[in-house]
């Protein structure tokens, strides 16, 4: 049941301005536990800005945001990791570390949490198996295709078992088949209990979806 108590992300009258240009205008929104939500709209609509606000990549100009009960405006910079460990982020440009192998890129999330090497080995292998990249664990990101890199990015986002997955145009740079695979992977992790916020401007992805779709246009939610 979708009640305020079940809301994992609560956004109240949020506005964001870059210099004097508005990126988001008076956004109010609840996203509930284990919900899969598409955030759609044309380029420049404010989708990425909204996601950035949720992982403390950007501040807000006005309003309030609660993520899993945490008021993000009150989280000091040195405590940002507390929120970021509840969130798995996937970017359009993957943001993998080129000097680290696939395994090391994923393990980094668990190492940052201070977990033991034995657990890390087991967990990373398990996630790699799920995304179908176990045989590429010693490869470096730049030797992989776009679709493979995004699979690694998905694995990195979910390995810490976050409550929320924020996917910022994860299929934007991929061909149809690779995009479908990534979507299916995110659906799998959603079914395992994660709340997914999927930003996309790909109309094909949302055409026949049963998930909630939020349209953004020029920084406002469209009815």
């Amino acid at each position, binding site marked *: 049941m979708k009640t305020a108590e079940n809301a994992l992300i609560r956004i109240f009258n949020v506005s964001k301005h870059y210099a004097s240009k508005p990126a988001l205008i008076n956004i109010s929104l609840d996203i509930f536990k284990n919900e899969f939500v598409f955030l759609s709209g044309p380029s420049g609509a404010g989708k990425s800005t909204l996601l950035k606000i949720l992982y403390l*990549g950007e501040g807000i100009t006005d309003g309030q945001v609660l993520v899993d009960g945490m008021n993000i405006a009150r989280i000091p910079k*040195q405590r940002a*990791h507390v929120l*970021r460990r509840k969130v798995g982020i996937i970017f359009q440009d993957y943001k*993998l*570390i080129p000097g680290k192998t696939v395994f090391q890129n994923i393990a980094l999330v668990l*190492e*940052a949490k201070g977990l033991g090497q034995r657990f890390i080995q087991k967990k990373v292998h398990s996630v790699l198996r799920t995304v179908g990249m176990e045989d590429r664990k010693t490869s470096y990101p730049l030797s992989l295709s776009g679709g493979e890199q995004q699979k690694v990015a998905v694995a990195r986002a979910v390995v*810490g078992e976050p409550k929320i997955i924020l996917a910022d145009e994860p299929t934007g740079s991929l061909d149809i088949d690779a995009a479908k695979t990534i979507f299916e992977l995110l659906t799998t992790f959603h079914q395992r209990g994660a709340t997914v916020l999927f930003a996309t401007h790909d109309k094909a992805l949302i055409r026949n979806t049963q998930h909630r779709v939020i349209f953004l246009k020029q920084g406002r939610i469209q009815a």
Partner: protein
Amino acid sequence: MISLFIKKALRDLNGNRFLNAITIVTIGLSILIISSFALFFLNTNALLNSWKKGIRVLVYLEQDATEANRLDLRYQIQQMAGIQDILFVSKDAALDRLKQQMQSQSALLENLKNNPLPDAFEVRIVDTSRELKKVAVLAEKIASLPQVEEVEYGQHFIARFSHVISIFKFVGYAMGGLFFIATLFIIANTIRLVLYSRKEEIEIMRLVGATDRFIKAPFYIEGLILSALGSMVGLVTLFTAYCAVLSKFQASLSLEMFKIQFLSLDQIFLFLAGSMLVGWMGCYLSLKQFLKS
């Protein structure tokens, strides 16, 4: 966790071999210069102390001093504090000693009609009173006694030598300070370069929930390793130079009471720890500035 940080630091050091090698050599040169000064002080001080240990006060008597005057004077000196023993050196014995010292040139002294040398007492001082100030006070007391013509204990030479050492000491401290700052900036800049080259990686680490401590720790370890290796390079170079100097000059110096020495283990450890402290501070400066931005 610490082993993970050490592994990361070693991997990063290996990844920037050229930059790190330059840093190590530069730190090594700074440490070499500072430790050379330290070694110089150590040995000049030891040399000065060995001279002070052998210090003797020569009390020259007036030409007309009688046997009774001599006995009285000897008694009075003996009563003073800090006297170990007194040896009377007659003017004839002094001339013989001079002839022996002049060896082949002693013939020059054969034509003397009169012995120009005075009778003297050679006064040896107990260990605890061999400080220059105490000797000076004692010498002054002796000089004030009747029948004493002059008192001499190498004061002019020792004072001049001490003065030269103190000048070098001052220069050493000044250079030490300068090289301290230089080393600090070398390490800070090396770490800063690495930080800028890995800016994106650090940003990604932050996004996946890494704390600042997790990001900083390997850099601190890198700074400590670089400074420790740098100081080792400097100290090993100094030791090599020391061995070379020792084999070449020790025999010709023929100083019985003095042997050229190297830094003690404590001093080596101090250099190592000091250098690592500078490494840590360099990292601190860079990281503070970088992570703030």
